[in-house]
């Protein structure tokens, strides 16, 4: 994210819009308490470094994530959303992530259809032991979103850029 690169960043969905020079992407991370949040804590305790653009919200289970949160985040603060839960079969609540997985796929495809780049909303399974994976995931999502440029679509009043 060096300055000279940033000057050229345009919004992928609206190529006519160029990112302001001080633009920093905001990534909303919604993590399940038992696997991914614990995994992200492990990333911290292991002092693994990742880009500082992610803002993490803790929920009990990935099945608590209403697609509505994704829409809301994209409409307000976020340029990208990362949702992470337990690996299939590892759900603390037996089956939560299976229900979540269905919703995520449909939400992702629907957003893609209405004009959001597919990298705007990404999902991962990160277990409590995968601190390194979490760092990698955040790095990848941040890089992807930087490439996509700022998100301008359907921003709520106070966030229209």
């Amino acid at each position: 994210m060096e300055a000279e690169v940033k000057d050229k960043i345009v919004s992928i969905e609206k190529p006519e819009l160029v990112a302001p020079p001080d633009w920093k992407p905001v990534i909303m991370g919604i993590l399940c308490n038992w696997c991914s949040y614990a995994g992200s804590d492990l990333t911290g305790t292991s002092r693994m470094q990742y880009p500082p653009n992610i803002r993490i919200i803790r929920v009990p289970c990935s099945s608590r994530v209403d697609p509505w949160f994704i829409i809301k985040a994209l409409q307000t603060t976020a340029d990208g959303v990362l949702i992470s839960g337990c690996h299939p079969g590892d759900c603390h609540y037996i089956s939560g992530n299976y229900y979540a997985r269905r919703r995520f796929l449909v939400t992702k495809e629907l957003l893609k259809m209405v004009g959001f780049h597919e990298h705007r909303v990404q999902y991962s399974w990160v277990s409590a032991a995968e601190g390194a994976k979490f760092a990698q995931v955040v790095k990848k999502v941040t890089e992807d979103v930087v490439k996509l440029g700022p998100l301008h679509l359907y921003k709520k009043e106070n966030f229209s850029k």
Partner: protein
Amino acid sequence: MARVGVFVCFCGANIADFVDVPTVVEEAKKIREVKFAIDYKYMCSDPGQQMIRDAIVQHRLTSIVVAACSPRMHEKTFRKALSDAGMNPYLLEVANIREHSSWVHQKDKKAATEKAGDLVRMAVAKSIANEQLHEISVPVTKRALVIGGGIAGIQAALDIADARIPVTLVERSPSIGGRMAQLDETFPTLDCSQCILTPKMVDVASHPYIELIPYSEVIELNGYVGNYKAKIRKKASYVNFKTCTGCGACWQKCPVKVPNEYNCGIDTRKAIYTPFPQAVPNKPVIDAEHCTMLLKGKCGICAKVCEKGSIDYKMVDEVIEREIGAVVVATGYDLWDATPYEEYGVGRYKDIINSLEFERMVSANGPTGGVPVRPSDGKVPKTVVFIKCVGSRDKAKGIEFCSKICCMYTAKHAILLHHKVHDSRAYIFYMDIRAAGKGYEEFVNRAQVETGAVYLRGRVSKIYQKGDKLMVRGEDGQLGQEVEVEADLVVLATAVIPYKENPALARLLGISYDKYGYLSEAHPKLRPVETAKAGIFLAGCTQAPKDIPDTVAQASACAAKVCGLFAGDTMKKDPMISTVNNEFCSGCQNCVQVCPYQAIVTEEIPLGHGAKEMRTVAKINEGVCQGCGSCVAICRSMAITLAGFTDPQIINEIVAI
């Protein structure tokens, strides 16, 4: 209006080195609701907590944000600090600026500080929507239900009952005792199974805190931890247990002969029978499938010979209900049917038996009086081949897992064979010898040295008949050559599989099971006796193959768990659970479908204020709900809220940056 206090921790140098803490405090002060913000070196220390307590009183704070380490670390600590200051502990939010900022952005202090500020803003925004929550106390019915009367069930029942907690023990067959009652002598000490088990069985029958319900099954379980209601079907025994003295006149005179399950079908029993002489309770039952009186209405001999008049052919199944607080499941195991091993000729050759059949034969109270014989001609075998891992550790034909106990009991069988038939020789084909356990390795060595058993490392490729002998062709892996043993008898150590009705039982209890049918524990390492459903525990081979010491240990662990659960009159439960707003609920019941704990039921409420017409809405059982939020996300009318993670809280967080 909300008055939020923000407390930012240095965590020594952990945070302060990479995040500019005073800037974070200044940022926090800019937020409208923040009335007090301060930093301190160690917030979790006593003086740090004292700062929080003082500020709560001094600044009349309505919620608290602590920016420090992960909430998974110190949330409880700070909640207690709030509690001590007279504030509801759930008005706390923790902003994780250590694991999520200072430790992971060590190269960019500016960005880390900025992020820490955002995390504090998010936590403040969330805390504004926090509500006062109170720990839920659920009343407890102090009675345990133990399903299965094998050694696991017996041990669990006795341990619980010894703590003066009433236990209902349900056993499917006419007598408790289970698989252990079928064993002769047990490894590694070769003490007689009956001798150590029977006293425990008698204890069960005579224990004032144990209600033994034999010949019955659990058919329904409703409710939640501490408050289950079980329905138990008592199968008709056609014998009045109250008057029966167990004299045995009836089964001696009964003309109908039926293969004896206790002896693996090697001999026969009668249609009215007790499974074995030491049965507890020692009362006969009539096998309705074979009794001619019940089938055709002819016979009635047993009724004639019974002096007490205890026989009642008109008896019917009876369903009884028990209110219980916890369940111990100890349904035990079955043996895998080795028919897929066609190359061994299983089913074709009579002289191939499984190890339980062998166990019965060498048992002193067995069908052959303790001497092994060939089923084909009744001769005593001189050369016996034992084949281990039949079905176990065989992904292609059998089951992937190791049955754990076969190595040990096969060594035992070799020894027992030697004891019973002195001039015999045992050949044992094995893959590995897994003798991890106290005295186990010594026991295997003893079998090899004392009895001269020949251990052949290799798989058997074929068994075929030659005259009246069975030719066992296999590989001796150590010599690297093919061997052929001329055997009189072949004993297969077939795999241990879960009790066949485990999946049905699991569905009935609302717990999960794995692909083999073993019931699933809540955590493979740290919660091996609990299930995912609170108040249901697992003991013995219902969870995984185990030997007797492990089974007994797990059963006692279950008992400890049950006693812990029943230690108070009520149970405390985390209040972060879902609740339904009746006004918005449209009664579609999709939440009922997705709840992994069956915590959601329906109730009827009036359509409007004072209306006679009723409508259906969902109702969450607070004792069962674990707070996953699955129902909240799928509720289209947003009628369900999850305390601690409500929609306003999460949306506040999202828009706070």
